[in-house]
């Protein structure tokens, strides 16, 4: 145990937590925006898989990481348009149409991978970018300020999402259509347009999450996400639809995971119970919620299709 409390191991654990948290954070922030507008998207995992594949494929073909990020964003937007049409215009049951997107993303990314790539080939990974001065701060410099640009973006999006939701007219519209679309409609706010826009933003961030995941790893595999998108959705509930809370959830989840891995590596967790230890992130997340004992209400119109008739 004492091995764990050495500065270098703690720093590494923290850095690992930040890396693990990055895709969750991006996807969860996107889902937060969508849910605040009243739209549940269970398809995050599928969007992440598609964007992860296409951005990986872009790097494989062009070697251009930034193009890959743009491609991921584009995949997110395309899936957002699709999801927007299904949920906003066709008023489909959201919980389930999201699962449709998930299944499609799972199958299609796998199919494309086998067709276009086959055997996993490593590609360039996202470089870490040191932030001048801050990167040299002992202990926190490495985990916090020697990360990739997508990680910085993910964390920068926390206050930005807060501002978007709480300080802009668009955010006001989002919150109102998520709580009482009839009221928003009666004031001339287009519920359809607002939700559609929120879905687009949400899916774009899911797209970026896929890029963050695959470009941090530098390799793709069928079902690369292993259900990360679902965890991202769960973290929105953990964070009670607040960007800061969502960040807390992503960090907690990442930190428990990273700690468990460190402890396995150090032999603190014996091999015989390594699977049991693998349950820790989920247990801690639920446990934390029980202890917090919050009664935060979901956006009142969450999952409810709106129509005037």
């Amino acid at each position, binding site marked *: 145990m004492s091995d764990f409390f050495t500065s270098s191991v703690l720093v590494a654990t923290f850095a690992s937590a930040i890396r693990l948290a990055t895709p969750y954070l991006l996807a969860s922030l996107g889902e937060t925006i969508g849910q605040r507008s009243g739209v549940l998207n269970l398809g995050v995992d599928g969007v992440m898989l598609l964007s992860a594949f296409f951005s990986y494929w872009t790097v494989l073909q062009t070697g251009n990481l930034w193009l890959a990020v743009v491609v991921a964003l584009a995949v997110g937007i395309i899936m957002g348009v699709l999801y927007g049409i299904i949920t906003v215009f066709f008023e489909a049951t959201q919980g389930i149409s999201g699962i449709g997107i998930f299944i499609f993303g799972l199958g299609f990314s796998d199919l494309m991978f086998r067709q276009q790539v086959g055997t996993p080939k490593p590609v360039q990974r996202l470089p870490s970018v040191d932030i001048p001065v801050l990167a040299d701060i002992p202990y926190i410099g490495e985990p916090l300020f020697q990360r990739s640009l997508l990680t910085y973006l993910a964390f920068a999006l926390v206050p930005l999402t807060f501002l978007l939701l709480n*300080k*802009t*007219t668009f955010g*006001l*519209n989002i919150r109102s259509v998520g709580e*009482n679309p009839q*009221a928003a409609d*009666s004031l*001339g706010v287009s519920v359809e347009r607002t939700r559609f826009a929120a879905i687009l933003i949400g899916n774009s961030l899911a797209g970026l999450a896929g890029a963050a995941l695959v470009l941090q790893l530098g390799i793709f595999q069928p079902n690369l996400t292993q259900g990360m998108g679902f965890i991202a959705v769960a973290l929105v509930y953990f964070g009670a639809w607040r960007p800061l809370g969502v960040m807390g959830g992503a960090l907690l989840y990442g930190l428990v995971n990273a700690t468990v891995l460190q402890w396995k590596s150090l032999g603190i967790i014996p091999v015989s119970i390594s699977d049991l230890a693998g349950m820790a992130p989920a247990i801690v997340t639920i446990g934390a919620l029980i202890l917090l004992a919050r009664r935060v209400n979901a956006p009142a119109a969450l999952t409810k299709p709106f129509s005037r008739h």
Partner: protein
Amino acid sequence: MNDQSNNLLEMRGITKYFPGVVANSDVDFDVRYGEVHTLLGENGAGKSTLVKILFGLYQADKGDLLLRGEKMEISSPSDAISSRIGMIHQHFMLVPTLTVAENVALGMPSTRRPLTDLDKVSKRISEISEEHGLTVNPSETVAHLSVGERQRVEIIKALYRDAELLVLDEPTAVLTPKEVDDLFVILRRMADNGRGLIFISHKLREVMSLSDRITVLRNGQVVGATTPDQTSREELAQMMVGRAVRLTPDLPPNEVKESRLSLNNVSVKNDSGTLAVDNVSFEVRAGEILGIAGVSGNGQREIAEAIAGLRTIEPDGLIEINGSNVSDTNTRSRRDQGLGFIPEERVPDGAIPEFTVGENLILVDHETDDFVSRGLFSFDKISEHSSQLVSDFNVKTPSVNTPTSSLSGGNIQKVILARELSASPSVLLACQPTRGVDIGAAEYIHNRLIEQRELGTATLLISEDLDEVLGLSDRVAVMYEGKVIAVVSGEDAEREKVGLLMAGVTETVDA
């Protein structure tokens, strides 16, 4: 103002179909500058439908709409808003989680795009507040506001958008008498400033005092138009319902028997944890109606929920139903003890809109042997029972299999009443039993309550309609700031005296 005619609004030949219903049939309706034009009619007569068409929420199947003399297409609320039409809906159109300023700013262009300009909005709200006497704190979250305050926010929203034609669909249904008086001062002033107002209400006293003109709808058709000085409440009632209606209930003498419901030192906290009911004791006896009068927000809701078992009481208190202590039991067992409960809000508390009328009628007693045999529902019996109740209570519905959501408010209320009264409760807790209900239905409900009293039910009637409380109650308890500050017998209860008590003025204070 307008040269051609004095009409701000003209609706001609408006017709609107809903599945199985003609909600408006060839309706002509107009509003002049500077007048309050009242729409009157039974539940389901088509009043809301007509004004929703005006506001772009529904599209008329036939008919024309002229605004300021010009033909207009209004296909969405934003069209209506930009034509300076404002609407205060029958159900509040507020986002409870947002602040007053945010609710007002919603949908309006901001001067600081893309950011909101809530400071400016707040300032403007304060100006409007001052100008019209509509006090409200712009930075307060709407969820924390009283019903009256919410109503004010709705009006501010319309004024903020500079509405020239203002529609008020039953704005007074949930207001206290004082709030109604205040509102009317504001509305009158708005009309005097040249705005046109459409007013909808079931309360004839209000209609007579506020309106310049009155149009009466029945079954979607205009059946008459008049002015207050040419008519009377009785005549209006006759026009609406098509028959004579007794406006104030008559309470025949009745024998009062044993205590059925008793509260002893009951204190209850509200959702924010402060004491809403403060050490209240009273009892209601068989064959008696005890009315609770009070301005809303003085603990009536909490005391009702405490009696119904929906809210826990503080440890020292005691609630007994038919002599047994129910303080710690749940709603189910209180109902088993003979409690009937008509909640304050039909939806979402009293009925399930998605359920059929029949299902709502068995919501409480769905598990009795009458309806279940060998674990399974016997639909024949349920259907028989429901049809009986529908006809007994005069519920206007195509069938017992109709989803309750497509019934008018008054008819939903009748469904709830039918359910609760048919169980022959020994104790009946009736909260706002006629809120939003037309006079015909209200008369009917009052008669049923009186009938129940004659059958020996102990009724606790909680209502903000002072006429109703005074007309129906053997005794009237006045609640003020969580306490029962006076109990007067029905005969001694005069409007003015009770009104003063409701404002917290007790007799010892010199007038």
